[in-house]
């Protein structure tokens, strides 16, 4: 029964009480406001805001989502997570990408997150309405975020804000534009008729009009006051004593609540009074939790599967149900009689009474609540109550116990939130907390902070177990690796091994480090072995983050070895492993990008683009999109979109390098130069180089060849291999092919010895071009033949296609001499029909992926409903997309749309 109390109860529309007084005058105004941006319901506690809106939600034709806010929503990530979870109740699947963001430690700018969500909503065919209850708990920055959202709120989204105080939102503007409906204090007060209905009908009190008038005047139409009065009156049965009560009440000038709560509580049995006071420390409650708080656990928190003492179990549930039936300001939070909370006002009064009556008991009550939540596995709540109990050691212990699991599932946001909740002094006095902070900072790339935390941890290490030292060494090793300091990394990794038992996740980290180190030395076989080991260790201890990361790295090793097909399978596996509860871990971003690059090699540019965009999105959110942008540059180049390629490099330049990026793709400068060189060479299918471009590329190549310390007789090493290949390319462009052939021959040998088939193909292609430039057709064709024979089985195409005109000439010769004739012809055909022009270039507002699909179907004979069926969406959705397509293409009907799309080359044949 106690499953995940928090989120579910936040999204639950409060139920209607049987003694509800329906308020058609207000419901009508809510309905009228449904199409505006905002409905604001602003009044103090106890005016029936929530009741009114939940009645409206129940009877409204439109599905309306509900979110009860609390202090936690001032954490922007939490707020947006809840916001989306609420909307998903009425629109499943909405905002998945944005949700993935919050699994990552580094949040992108707030506006970027919101813009992404807003755009997604703006694409929806239907209207969404979301109720935000208790908005008064919200402060900036969440409030600012909502202000931003209101400003660019898509037409499809309508907000209903319930608050005790006017929020700091551009209300005047919304009012002036007629975009807001307001229901306030004056509107919410019970009218005389409503008071009569409530007191006499719903509460069955049969009061005289004069008595009702007295009560109404005394409470000023305040519903909470009237409710309490009614409760007090219900127990006062003879009419005379009722009249007496009302006289006393209206003659008394005390605060309404003071008078009434005393009256109501006094009428409750001692047991109930006590229950109310003790449970007042809880923000939410269920029977077993109440029992735990009242009686405590029989045992210590370290064996938390607890049962309650003295046989009172079940009592709490009974009392809650009693309070619910007695209408004692208990608000059900679900429809299973599981979770409740007190009405805020009532809860405040109870807590005040508890503080006055038994202040010394309060920490103990919180401590018991913490222990119960811990036993149920709700660590967030357990930490909250431990801190409320001033039990710092308990809070620290809770974080320490769960932190490793959070790291393993890459739930870094949660970990960081918990660490932030603890006082700094505490974190600095506990070695494990310092180590977990170091991990969090390492992944978020805060080098300074990592070092500080590690120093603290080291200093305190005598207080902890050996494997603490293992973690410290592993983090230091990863830092060294990020600094390219291989020997320190390996030394530290070995050191770490001494501290931990077999099967410990630290072994996985070490395997990854050793794999990376082997890779950096060009030992692909060794790297594969250690990485496979890392995968199996990580799998054994359920370290998902590491499983996905190491699998992706393995895939990359396979591509380098020329096993392109196998690598595609491996990346696919990594992507599947990264699916958790229907969403993808951000660590999958790298797998998407690697997959995109492999598909690009095979000239499968559409699927490559698909993976790249998804990967870039995830990497952006993960904080390391740099290699994603570089990959995008090479994809744009393949698509013949030169400007797009340059933009992507510029985007990459704006990103800072993250720590622990997996095998960075290619240096920024190298990518730029490579682009200039392939762009400089005229190629069929891409636009002819504009005047000056080729010359500029040559100038750049020449400068780089001089400035870089590279030379053709360098000792070759794997970590400089791609630079040397680039040097050979530059030499060919600079009309120094003879030097290039010598360098390339040495590179080829090294690549073959190292088992790097992919590099060998690239080297052979360049070598063929160099010999061709030297006029040595035989050697050129020999090299090309070798390259083709290695490329064909795995479908490598771009190495040839990227080379343009010179390669076409050579390839034609090969085909005519029966050298790999079939593959040569396939490639020649790909040259002639190159990457299709990006449709986005010709439309001001490019079509979305979905719109492209619909457009494609518009060319068929299928009717609207048939298209809808095919796409598994509603007819309205298809109509919505069609309308947008017409708008973007500037046409009015289907026939025109097809013709226009045809002329723009937007259709796939």
């Amino acid at each position, binding site marked *: 029964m106690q499953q995940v109390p928090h989120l579910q109860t936040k999204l639950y529309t409060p139920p209607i009480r049987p003694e509800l007084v329906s308020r058609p005058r207000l419901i009508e105004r809510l309905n009228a406001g449904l199409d505006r941006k905002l409905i604001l319901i602003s009044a103090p*506690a106890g005016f029936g805001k929530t009741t009114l809106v939940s009645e409206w939600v129940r009877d409204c034709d439109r599905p309306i989502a509900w979110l009860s806010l609390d202090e936690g929503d001032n954490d922007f990530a939490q707020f947006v997570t809840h916001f989306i979870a609420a909307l998903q109740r009425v629109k499943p699947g909405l905002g998945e990408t944005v949700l993935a963001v919050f699994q990552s430690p580094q949040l992108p700018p707030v506006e970027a997150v919101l813009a992404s969500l807003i755009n997604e909503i703006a694409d929806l065919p239907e209207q969404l309405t979301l109720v935000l209850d208790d908005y008064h708990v919200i402060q900036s920055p969440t409030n600012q975020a909502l202000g931003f959202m209101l400003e660019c709120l898509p037409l499809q989204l309508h907000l209903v804000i319930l608050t005790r105080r006017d929020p700091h939102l551009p209300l005047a503007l919304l009012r002036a534009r007629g975009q807001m409906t307001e229901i306030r204090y004056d509107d919410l007060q019970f009218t005389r008729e409503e008071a009569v209905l409530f007191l006499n009908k719903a509460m069955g009190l049969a009061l005289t009009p004069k008595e009702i008038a007295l009560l109404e005047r005394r409470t000023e139409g305040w519903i909470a006051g009237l409710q309490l009065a009614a409760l007090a009156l219900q127990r006062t049965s003879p009419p005379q004593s009722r009249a007496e009560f009302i006289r006393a009440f209206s003659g008394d000038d005390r605060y309404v609540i*003071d008078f009434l709560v005393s009256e109501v509580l006094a009428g409750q049995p001692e047991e109930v009074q006590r229950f109310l006071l003790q449970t007042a420390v809880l923000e939410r409650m269920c029977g077993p939790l109440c029992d735990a708080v009242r009686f405590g656990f029989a045992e210590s928190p370290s064996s938390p599967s607890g049962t309650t003492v003295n046989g009172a179990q079940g009592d709490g549930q009974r009392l809650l149900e009693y309070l619910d039936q007695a209408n004692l300001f208990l608000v059900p939070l679900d429809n299973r009689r599981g979770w409740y909370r007190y009405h805020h006002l009532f809860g405040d009064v109870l807590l*005040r009474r508890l503080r006055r009556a038994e202040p010394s008991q309060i920490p103990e009550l919180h401590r018991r609540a913490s222990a119960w939540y811990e036993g149920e596995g709700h660590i967030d709540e357990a930490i909250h109550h431990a801190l409320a109990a001033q039990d710092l050691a308990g809070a620290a212990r809770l974080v320490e116990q769960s932190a490793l699991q959070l790291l393993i599932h890459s739930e870094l946001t949660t970990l960081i939130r918990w660490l932030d909740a603890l006082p700094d002094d505490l974190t600095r006095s506990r070695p494990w907390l310092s180590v977990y902070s170091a991990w969090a900072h390492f992944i978020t790339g805060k080098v300074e902070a990592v070092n500080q935390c590690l120093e603290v941890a080291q200093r305190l290490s005598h207080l902890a177990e050996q494997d603490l030292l293992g973690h410290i060494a592993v983090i230091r090793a990863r830092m060294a690796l990020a600094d390219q300091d291989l020997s320190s990394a390996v030394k530290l990794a070995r050191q770490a091994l001494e501290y931990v038992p077999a099967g410990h996740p630290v072994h996985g980290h070490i395997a990854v480090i050793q794999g990376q180190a082997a890779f950096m030395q060009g030992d692909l076989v060794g790297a594969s072995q250690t990485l496979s080991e890392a995968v199996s260790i990580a799998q054994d201890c359920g370290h998902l983050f590491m499983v996905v990361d190491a699998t992706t790295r393995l895939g990359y090793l396979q591509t380098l070895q020329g096993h392109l097909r196998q690598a595609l399978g491996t990346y696919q596996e990594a992507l599947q492993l990264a699916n958790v509860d229907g969403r993808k871990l951000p660590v999958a971003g790298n797998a998407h990008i690697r997959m995109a690059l492999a598909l690009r090699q095979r000239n499968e540019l559409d699927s490559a683009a698909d993976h790249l965009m998804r990967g870039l999105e995830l990497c952006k959110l993960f904080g390391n999109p740099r290699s994603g942008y570089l990959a995008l540059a090479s994809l744009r180049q393949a698509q013949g979109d030169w400007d797009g390629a340059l933009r992507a490099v510029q985007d990459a330049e704006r990103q800072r390098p993250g720590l622990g990026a997996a095998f960075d793709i290619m240096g920024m400068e190298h990518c730029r130069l490579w682009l200039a060189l392939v762009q400089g060479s005229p190629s069929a299918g891409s636009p002819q180089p504009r005047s000056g471009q080729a010359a500029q590329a040559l100038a750049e190549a020449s400068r780089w060849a001089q400035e870089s310390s590279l030379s053709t007789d360098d000792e070759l090493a794997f970590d400089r291999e791609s630079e040397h290949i680039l040097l050979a390319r530059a030499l060919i462009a600079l009309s120094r092919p003879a030097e290039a052939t010598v360098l390339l021959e040495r590179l080829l040998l090294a690549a073959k010895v190292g088992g790097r088939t992919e590099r060998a193909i690239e080297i052979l292609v360049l070598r063929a071009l160099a010999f061709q430039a030297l006029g040595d057709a035989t050697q050129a064709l020999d090299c090309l033949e070798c390259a083709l024979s290695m490329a064909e089985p795995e479908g490598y195409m771009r190495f040839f296609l990227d080379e343009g005109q010179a390669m076409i000439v050579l390839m034609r010769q090969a085909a005519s001499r029966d050298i790999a004739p079939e593959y040569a012809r396939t490639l020649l055909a790909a040259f002639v029909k190159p990457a299709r022009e990006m449709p986005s270039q010709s439309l001001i507002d490019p079509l979305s992926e979905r719109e492209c699909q619909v457009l494609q179907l518009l060319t068929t004979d299928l009717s609207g409903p048939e298209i809808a069926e095919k796409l598994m969406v509603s007819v309205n959705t298809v109509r919505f997309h069609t309308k947008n397509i017409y708008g973007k293409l500037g046409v009015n009907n289907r026939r025109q749309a097809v013709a226009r799309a045809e002329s723009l080359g937007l259709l796939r044949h």
Partner: protein
Amino acid sequence: MGDTRPIESERAIYEIRIRDRLDEDWSEWFDPMTLTHTSEGQTILTGPVADQAALHGLLSKISDLNLTLISVTQVE
């Protein structure tokens, strides 16, 4: 640029007047304010307020109880 020094470095004493008559035992709720009553049955909370944020927190407490605020005055 204006004067950016804190306006008041020491805790200011505020007097907050509420229309309703609150029981004495609310003073703990509004700690460290002391609670007195006027002859008209109004309540006056008097005491040190650390800063503006604390003052607003105090006013929120008052509004959450649906008490009617009459005046807020800094007395020293």
